[in-house]
Each structure stands twice: as structure tokens, then as C-alpha cells.
């Protein structure tokens, strides 16, 4: 069963199309890493995959590049937002006013995995950039689902923490599509690397099959 399929697709708008004639399939169990210079269309591709898979009824967890957190709300409530569609309005209203003990326990455990322990009741506005990014990741992990879509999900955390967080994603999601700029991290996390340059695919292969020269060509001027 294929989760997503593109054949000869053009993504982006009209003359400003970012990606053209794109063919790609995503199968369960794959961890696909998108590589390429900024502006090449990684975010556009992720958005398209998101629409396609949610349209097909898949449960997708999304970690966007700009976090899209509500700064005035606590970490706990921001994380709870990942599952609002699982409940009715009254249940969610109750969670908003006073989160249940069970929800709090679940989120607290998750925060500990992300080195955010003790911050559940802190407003997001009071956090550092790296902490905010991990809250956005926590929201995605809390949501769970068949696929994780991440747009530079660990760009603001330090080098030792990044790989640990990516391991966490690999452990929680059978399938993932993640845009990364750290090549080493990409080789470590991905089962398949997709190199994008100038609106087309430069390579699409397992990490072992992508040579350093190909990788250099991806970013060369």
C-alpha cells in the first residue's frame, strides 16, 4: 500500500512553480529525508504530501518550520492541541479550562523525553527558541499517526540533542518525511534521501547509495 504518490506533478503556483514534473511514491516504513538549498521547494512538497495524505484519511503529525504555537498558552495546552480532532467541543473546552490529570501525565512523560521537564505550565512565550521548537515537536509526537511530516524539526537544538530527537521520531512513527539541512543527520536518520535542486530531483536513493560528490553537487554554486 502506497501512502502518497506523485506522477509528473507541478507544485507551487503558475509561473512561480517551485517543483515541476515531479514523480515520487511514499511507502509505509520509509523515512524519507528531503535535502536541498533553502527555497528549493521542500516546504512546498511537504505541504502537498500533507494535503494528499490527510485528504486520503491518513492521520498525519505535522511539525512546521515556524512552529505555529500559541505564545500566550502554556506548553501543556499547546501540546494538547495535537489531538483536538479526537474529541468534541465540550471535552476540549474542559481541557482548555483545566486539563485532566491523565492528559497532564501523558504530556509530562513526553516532555521528559524532549528535555522539557518542569515546563508544562510555562507560557510558550517565555521559552527559548530551541525549547519552542521542541514544544512544536512534542505536539506532533502527542498527535501520533501513520506519518510524521517535519520541516527542519531540530534546526534550533544543539548537535548532541538533534540525533536523539530524530531517534525519538523514528521510534514513534513507522513512516516519516523530514526536511533537514544537516547531511550527517540525514544519513543517520533516513532510509531514503531525496535531493532537490533547481526544481527537480537530483537523486532519490538509500543513504549508502548517495555519494559525497552527489551531495556536494546539491549545494554547490
Amino acid at each position, binding site marked *: 500500500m502506497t501512502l502518497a504518490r506523485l506522477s509528473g506533478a507541478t507544485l507551487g503556483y503558475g509561473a512561480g512553480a517551485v517543483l515541476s514534473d515531479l514523480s515520487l511514491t511514499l511507502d509505509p516504513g520509509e523515512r524519507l529525508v528531503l535535502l536541498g538549498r533553502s527555497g528549493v521547494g521542500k516546504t512546498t512538497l511537504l505541504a502537498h504530501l500533507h494535503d494528499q495524505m490527510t485528504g486520503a484519511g491518513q492521520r498525519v503529525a505535522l511539525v*512546521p518550520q515556524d512552529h505555529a504555537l*500559541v505564545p*500566550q*498558552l502554556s506548553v501543556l*495546552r499547546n501540546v494538547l492541541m*495535537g489531538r*483536538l480532532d479526537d474529541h468534541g*467541543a465540550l471535552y476540549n*473546552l474542559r481541557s482548555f479550562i483545566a486539563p485532566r490529570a491523565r492528559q497532564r501525565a501523558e504530556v509530562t512523560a513526553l516532555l521528559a523525553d524532549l528535555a522539557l521537564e518542569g515546563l508544562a505550565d510555562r507560557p510558550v512565550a517565555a521559552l527559548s527558541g530551541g525549547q519552542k521548537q521542541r514544544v512544536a515537536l512534542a505536539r506532533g509526537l502527542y498527535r501520533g499517526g501513520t506519518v510524521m511530516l517535519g520541516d527542519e524539526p531540530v534546526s534550533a537544538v544543539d548537535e548532541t540533542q538533534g540525533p536523539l530527537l530524530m531517534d525519538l521520531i523514528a521510534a514513534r512513527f513507522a513512516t516519516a518525511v523530514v526536511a533537514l539541512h544537516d547531511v550527517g543527520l540525514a544519513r543517520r536518520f533516513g532510509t531514503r534521501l531525496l535531493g532537490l535542486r533547481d526544481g527537480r530531483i537530483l537523486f532519490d536513493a538509500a543513504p549508502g547509495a548517495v555519494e559525497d560528490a552527489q551531495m556536494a553537487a546539491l549545494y554547490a554554486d
Partner: protein
Amino acid sequence: MPIRLRIVALFALAGLLALPLADLTLAGHDPWAALARMGAGFLRPDFGAVDQIGRALASTVFFAIAGVALGGAAGFVMAPFLHLRGVRGLAIALRSVHELFWALLLLQVLGLGPLTGVLAIALPYAGIFAKVFAEQIEEVDPRPAQILPPRTGALSRFVFAQLPLAAGAMQSYTLYRLECGLRSSAVLGFVGLPTLGFQLDSFFRMGDYGAASAILICYVALIASLRLWMRRRLVPVWIAAAVVWLALIPTPPMGQGALWRFLSHDVIPAPLRDGWDAGAFADWLGPLLMQQVLPGLWATLLVAQIALVLTGLVALASFGLIVRRVTGRVGQALGHLGLVILRSLPDYMLAYLFLQIFGPSMLPAILALGLHNGAIIGHLLGREGEALVPRLRADAPRGTMLWLWELLPRLFGAFVALCLYRWEIILRETAVMGLLGVATLGFYIDGAMSELRLDRAVLLLLGAGALTVAVDAASRHLRARTDGRARATGRGTAQALAQDVGLRRT
């Protein structure tokens, strides 16, 4: 000529042309003697009537709190549904009728009781709150709402991803509205509710200018210190106190079915109460239009246009006063004092004061409107100007030259936007000044009400509402042409500035 200058020139010309058509006579027999007597009294405030002053001020505060709380709650409920035509129409209808007109209508149904005062504030404020809250919700960062899982319910989306983002702006707007509510509440005293206006009127009737001065000083102090005594944690306490205080005010007995009689009989045009009669209706409508609605509209427009020009002049002259690099430390302090007084006293109350001096004509109304609204704009511009000064070059001039060369050109766009925004407010207030005897729409509405011809009063109110809506539309159009941001966000600098009158510290 740049568009802003053209608009200003057009309005100035309209004001000038209106000048010879307006009744500006000094009708008082000896205004200067009256002024001297009042001045002497005002310089010697007499706080002896503590009991009366305290009661009037407490009622003013509690009517304002209850009215704003109820109006705010109703507006909050309406705001998310404002895209529905019915709800939007209701909000427009509610806010196009002035608080004092609402009070006069409610008096017919509920009598002179606490509910009349609370609803007179709450009804128009609900319409205003609904509009502003809806705009504030619309303007929040859309990304958190977009990231929510698909098929998240509308209420959950609103509560988690929109409300928290808008809450800060909503809170400071509500505080600003409370300041407006304190003015509305004070003015409701002039139609008989036990608030400041009532007490002021009785002090004046007794010629007790010292006590009048004392109560006005307390009132200005109360408004100036609003942010000290209205704290978020104290809100429930204040509301509870307001409910208790208002419940202790006696409610007059009204006949059974007063509301039904009002709706099913009183407001129906008299010739139509026994069935449709086109001829009789035309005989009713024709003279009413020619002798009341049109003259009232005309006088309202005349006064409002002259007052708008005066507002602009006062604003331009006064904003420099509160910039230290223009007037110095002492001048700045005096400027602030003058502007605080003129801002805090409602224009209706200022007009009442001027009426005691100059006698009945359009002059007191124009002066009051110009000074009050000019002081509000002057305050906002002056604060912007003060913030600009540190960013100017080090060798920038001082005094009047700074005002003219550096500040005026930079603030002119905001000045025009603020004046256009105030235009509609001035018009609403002008109509209501008729209750003081100036021949604007309120004069005819008051006359119809006191003759218990409510059908005529309602038609006149519709005329006033239509004029407000028309000027609001014209103002929005002009603002959109002069301020790109107004078009982009649905709200320009003017309203953004006006909203946070004195709120920047919160």
C-alpha cells in the same frame, strides 16, 4: 496636491461654508459675568457635599461597570458570528443609536430604574464590542489555527488557537471602553439617572459652583486613575459591587405590559394603528420629514462639520504642548493637565457647561465637540511625537520649529486618519446635543418623546442612525484611500491608535 492635503482642504472649506449658516449668537444676557461667577466658584472647589458627591460618583462608576460588562459579554458572543448578515445588521443597528437616545427609549418601557441605565450603555456598546472583537480575532496570527488537525471543531479551534492570541488586545480595548463607559454613565444623569450629570445639574441650579467644581475634580481624578483601581483580579469584585449597588436603587413601578404596548402600539405611526391608510400616512410622514427630520439632519451636519474643523485645529495646536522638546518640562506638564481635563469630561457635559455661559445656540455644542475631540487627538499625536523625538537627528530644532518642521510632517498622516475616525463619533454626539436645546436631531427626538409621540421619535432615530452609518462609510472610504494599512487589515492607524488611548502602559 497630495491626497491628504486635498481631503483636509475640502473639509476646511466645508466648515467655512457652514459657518455663516450656523446660529452662533451669544444668547446669554451677560456671558462674561456668568463666566466670572463660574470661574470664581471653580477656583474654590467645595468638597462639603461629600455625601451627594460620593453617591453620584459611585453610581457613575457602577452604571459604567455593569453596562460595559454586559455589553462586552454580549459583544463577545456576537463577534464570532459577525459574518452572518443578521448578526452584523443587529450590531450596526445597536451602535448607530446613541446611549442617551437608548436611555430615552428605555425610559418609556422600563421607567427611571437601574436597568434603564445599564441597558442604555450595554446595548450600543454590545454593537461596538462585537465589531472590534471580530476585527481583533480576524487579525491574529493564522498559523496556529492552520496547524490544528483537520476536522477540529470550530469551537475548539476558536478557544485554543484564536482566543488566546486576541485576548490581550481584547482586554486593553475593554479597559478603554470602560473609560468611555464612565463618560456615558456620567452623561446619563442628564436624563434623570442618579449619576454625575444629575448631581452636576442640581449643583448648577442652586448656583453652587464650588460643589460643581469639586465633583468635576473628583471625576477627572477617577478617570485619570482608572488603571490603578481597575485591576484584572478585582474585576469580579467590582462587578459584584455594581450589582449590589444598582439593586439598591429603587425601580419605579411600570404598568403591566409596558413593553408590549410600546412595541405593538406606541412605535407604530399614529395613522396606521387602526389599519393601513396610505393617505393618512402620507399626511403624517410629509410634514414630519419637512419640518423635523430634514431640518434636524441639516443642523446636525452643520454643527458636526464646523466642530470637525475646530477639532482639527485644537488637535494640531495642542499636540505640541505635551512634547517636552517643544514646550519644556513645565509646559509639558501643564499641557498634559489641560488635555486630561478636556479628554475626561464628556463633550455633552462640556456643552452643558458652555451653555450656562453662552446661552442656547450652536456655539456651545461646537466648542465642546471641538475641544473634547481635539484634546483626544492631540493627546494621541503628542504621545507619538514624544516617542519620535529620540529618533530625530541630534541637531534637530527645539520649540515651535521642531513642531512645524519635524513633528507635523511626520504625524500628518496619523492626524488625518484620526480626524476621519472621529468624524463619525462627532456626528453621533452632535445629534445627541439636541437634548440640550441645540436644534440638531436630538432636539426633535426629545420633543417627540416628551409629547409621548414615540412613533415620530422612532422615525427621527432612524434618520440619525442612517446619517451615522453613511458618515461611517464615507470615513472608512477616505481612510482606505489615505492609509494603505487600513485597507490591508480592515483597520488603520487611527483605530489602532484610538483603541489604546492611554493604554500603552498596560
